[in-house]
């Protein structure tokens, strides 16, 4: 492999966004969690929520500050490294980035000061409103940036004139076909990631015998939240998959390592995809299940990679394995939630050592899942920056 500007630019982008996405993955969830705690404190008035909130606000401030400064790099990269992409897509995408700044960043940044330092300077309701605004800001930010990303995955509402995109229909651009699914799947993914961090820290506190009351409250409350969030996330992931099958069939074929088009295709659990020979080696697969999961129909047709020329296909191994890492972690998390129900029923949630220890071990896995999911969707979009229209190689 040559170290040409294209590869270097891609490596730089991966490096920056890889670090950057970890911070929102945590801060989007944490902002909502803090707003929830501040709300409970404000309406119910129990001191314990106040103490828990104070604990997380300190951690939030560090993560948020780093998220801001690593995020500032992002728009400038478009100019410094991806100037042809910027020139081609600016008419369509730049307002979405700008709206992110206008609606989200200012809201977060301005109210963050009050949230962090203003508890004794403003009335209690104003402090609660500040927490709400910060959380709302993080969600708005996710909205716009994922809209922009989704447009690159499933472009709509534009006209292509002389290699540059011009907007036709803003509603179609913002609410492009993959956007609602990507938004739901990503935000709930961020919530789940944060919730498992909270659970892990709570388990650690309980095992150390420090602030056991707060630890137990956190553990119980967060596991109830996860009881809703984890199954919801799996459902959203499934819907997102159906959407990908419809709009980005090459990505789906790469994720599943399907080379030949067919009906009643198997589900490949594990294999070594061999791009040279267009086949899988050492495949472990379940008959028919692929069609059933991907199309919700035993006879559903899945188009294989061989339908497209080689220069139109994404790399196969990376999305294939990244997807399996993500789903594996998702199933593990579901297992943790189910185990929590059983322990709750037995009344042993807070003193089962093996479970608390597992909670600590699972705590960082949400971040791995977020990175794996991001890798799946971004590498699966290759060799395009704007799917089917603008090649990555022509974007530098």
């Amino acid at each position, binding site marked *: 492999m040559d170290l040409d500007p294209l590869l270097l630019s891609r490596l730089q982008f991966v490096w920056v966004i890889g670090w950057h996405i970890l911070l929102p993955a945590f801060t989007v969830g944490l902002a909502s969690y803090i707003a929830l705690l501040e709300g409970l404190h404000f309406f119910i008035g129990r001191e314990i929520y106040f103490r828990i909130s104070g604990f997380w606000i300190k951690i939030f401030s560090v993560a948020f500050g780093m998220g801001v400064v690593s995020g500032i790099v992002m728009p400038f990269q478009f100019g410094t490294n991806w100037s042809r992409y910027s020139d081609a897509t600016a008419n369509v995408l730049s*307002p979405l980035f700008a709206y992110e700044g206008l609606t989200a960043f200012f809201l977060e*940044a301005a109210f963050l000061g009050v949230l962090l*330092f203003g*508890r004794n300077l403003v009335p209690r309701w104003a402090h609660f409103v500040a927490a709400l605004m910060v959380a709302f800001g993080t969600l708005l930010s996710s909205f716009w940036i994922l809209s922009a990303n989704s447009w690159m995955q499933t472009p709509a509402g534009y006209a292509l004139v002389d290699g540059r995109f011009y907007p036709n229909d803003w509603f179609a651009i913002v609410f492009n076909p993959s956007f609602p699914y990507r938004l739901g799947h990503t935000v709930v993914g961020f919530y789940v990631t944060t919730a498992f961090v909270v659970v892990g820290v709570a388990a650690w506190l309980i095992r150390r015998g420090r602030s056991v009351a707060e630890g137990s409250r956190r553990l119980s409350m967060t596991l109830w939240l996860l009881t809703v969030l984890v199954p919801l996330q799996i459902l959203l992931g499934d819907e997102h998959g159906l959407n990908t099958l419809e709009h980005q069939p090459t990505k789906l074929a790469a994720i599943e390592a399907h080379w030949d088009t067919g009906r009643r295709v198997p589900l490949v659990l594990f294999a070594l995809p061999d791009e040279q020979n267009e086949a899988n080696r050492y495949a472990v697969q379940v008959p028919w299940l692929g069609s059933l999961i991907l199309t919700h129909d035993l006879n559903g047709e899945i188009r294989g990679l061989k339908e497209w020329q080689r220069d139109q296909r994404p790399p196969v191994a990376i999305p294939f394995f990244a997807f399996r890492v993500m789903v594996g972690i998702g199933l593990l998390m579901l297992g943790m939630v189910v185990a929590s129900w059983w322990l709750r029923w037995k009344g042993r949630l807070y003193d089962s050592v093996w479970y608390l220890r597992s909670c600590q071990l699972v705590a960082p896995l949400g971040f791995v899942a977020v990175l794996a999911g991001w890798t799946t969707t971004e590498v699966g979009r290759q060799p395009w920056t704007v799917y089917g229209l603008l090649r990555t190689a022509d974007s530098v």
Partner: protein
Amino acid sequence: MIQKKSKRTPERPRARRARPLPAKRKGRLIMPSLVLDFVPLWTLILGIGVCFYVILDGFDLGVGILFGLQPDTASRNLVMNSIAPIWDSNETWLVLGGHALLAAFPLAFAIIIPAVYFPILVMLLALIFRGVSFEFRYRDSARKTFWDHGFSWGSTVATFAQGVVLGAFIQGFQVDGRHFAGTSWDFITPFALVTGLALVFGYGLLGAGWLVLKTEGDLQARARRHGRWCFLGVFAAIGIVSVWTPLMNAGIATRWFSWPNMLLLAPVPVLTALLGWLEWRSLNNSSDATPFIAAIGLFLISYLGIGISLWPMIVPHVYTLWDAASAPSTQAFLAVGTLFLLPVILMYSAWSYWVFRGKVKSDIGYH
């Protein structure tokens, strides 16, 4: 392969397709044949955005520069606390400036940003380092000295890099069609180094003004002393740049020194001198707010001066604002929201400043 081409052709964008380098245009504006022209509005919004950034992050970067000159931990803590609740939202104006340039004038973005790749890179790295130092200084007391240095050097380097970008921008770039055609090292010129240094003094002056406003006693006296040194640097820099720029470019010289422009523009140098006098006097007497206000005034008047020199170019000497504008529909879509949101942003930003008004206390740190 999916090839979704919308059937409806868009309204034909104005004449700004790839074209040979335009000949001297002598500032003649190519007015678009549209009923509603959003370019003046976007020029104003971008101008306001950059202006807010320069003043707001200017003073907190300046506070960072002066932070390194504080002799003891107690004053360093106070200096830090004076900007802790607001630096985040100040820096956000930089994001707005970058986005507004990309959204409203994408051609300028695609030419200017690659041309100043390295100073931008250095600025971003310095801002990151500064932001991280900011947070970790509170948490990691074992390495506080390291983070202290990180904060003041990060602020200084970021400021210098911004000044270099400004200098390179005023000098202009080599352009071929729609692309930057020079090398990554073109920005290193004596002029850009002078503007880099000038901005360090300039932000230092703003920072000193802020500290005079927010602190008392010895710390305030020190801020006044630092402010006086910065002021001397700033005034020298304004003088040098004002002489150098017209010498460098005949067009700029004509704009300022031809009749009747000379008379019409005379208020600019007169106001500059007046503000300079006010700044110096207030740094030497007991006024709390005037040093900061006069420093802002000096920035505004310098900003106006640069604007007068370069108008109506966005890629200096090559492309006008109208050449570089994005599609009218893009500008319209964003303008609608921006006109509504900017006042709201200003209101709640003002509120968060209001919450932390008055002299800074040593006990407002993270609770």
